[in-house]
């Protein structure tokens, strides 16, 4: 049973954090907003009877990925990145308008879906066992192959990163 008030507060925080990410000039700030957003969503997960995913969200997203972002930002020099902030040349405006227009269309679509109210109450079904144990059983019962493929994917990613990370003599990648 989720208290609607709790939901609204959390949702507001999440949306605010996302907006902050979007609007912030400084990439470091953006990253911090991102953490906030992730954390909020993690709370949602807890509320939605997904404790394990919640923890993963915290550790992987907030812990690893955002740290990675911060790391790269620091490595490339945060102040330089600020210089790359958005100033809008004339020809780019149309681009922006289209983007915003599309976003509005999308919002409309979502709104339409919600207004249909055809799906029902989220807590209709009783909460099932979503302990890490149960999750693990489901994972390995139904998703062994995707699991392995994901492993390979990670491996490939690791290799790719290693390759990209090489510094060649003459310092050029084939760009």
């Amino acid at each position, binding site marked *: 049973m*989720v208290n609607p008030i709790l939901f609204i507060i959390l949702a507001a925080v999440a949306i605010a954090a996302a907006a902050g990410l979007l609007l912030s000039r400084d990439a470091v700030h953006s990253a911090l907003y991102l953490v906030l957003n992730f954390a909020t969503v993690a709370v949602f997960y807890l509320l939605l009877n*997904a404790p394990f995913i919640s923890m993963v969200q915290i550790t992987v997203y907030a812990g690893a990925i955002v740290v990675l972002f911060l790391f790269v930002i620091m490595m490339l020099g945060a102040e330089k990145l600020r210089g790359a902030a958005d100033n809008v040349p004339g020809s780019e405006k149309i681009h922006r308008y289209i983007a915003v227009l599309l*976003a509005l269309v999308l919002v409309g679509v979502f709104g339409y879906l919600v207004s249909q109210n055809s799906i029902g109450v989220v807590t209709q079904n009783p909460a099932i066992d979503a302990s890490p144990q149960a999750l693990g059983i489901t994972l390995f019962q139904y998703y062994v192959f995707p699991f392995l493929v994901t492993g390979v994917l990670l491996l490939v990613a690791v290799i790719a990163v290693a390759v990209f990370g090489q510094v060649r003599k003459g310092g050029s990648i084939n760009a």
Partner: protein
Amino acid sequence: MPSVVDINWYIALSGILFVIGVLGVLLRRNAIIVFMSIELMLNSANLLFVAFARHLGSLHGQVLVFFVITVAAAEVAVGLALIVAIFRTKKSINIDEINILKG
């Protein structure tokens, strides 16, 4: 105010987050922030997955989220590596300056 939080609330929240993410991708030129926006979009989708998992009383949604997180991690790693590599060459991560595909 409705007394029960139903699935539509989550759809709405998730939609809003997703659109914000989309706007980030489309409007920002800082490649790192573009990436963060992508993460945001993925996150909104995850939220919806978990909500529906709760809604339908099934664990499969959660498992899917698990996979998405994994893949997202991989993607971020590769993407950031690319950004670093590009930065080394171009001395910039402004995605508008990366336009060798111009026809």
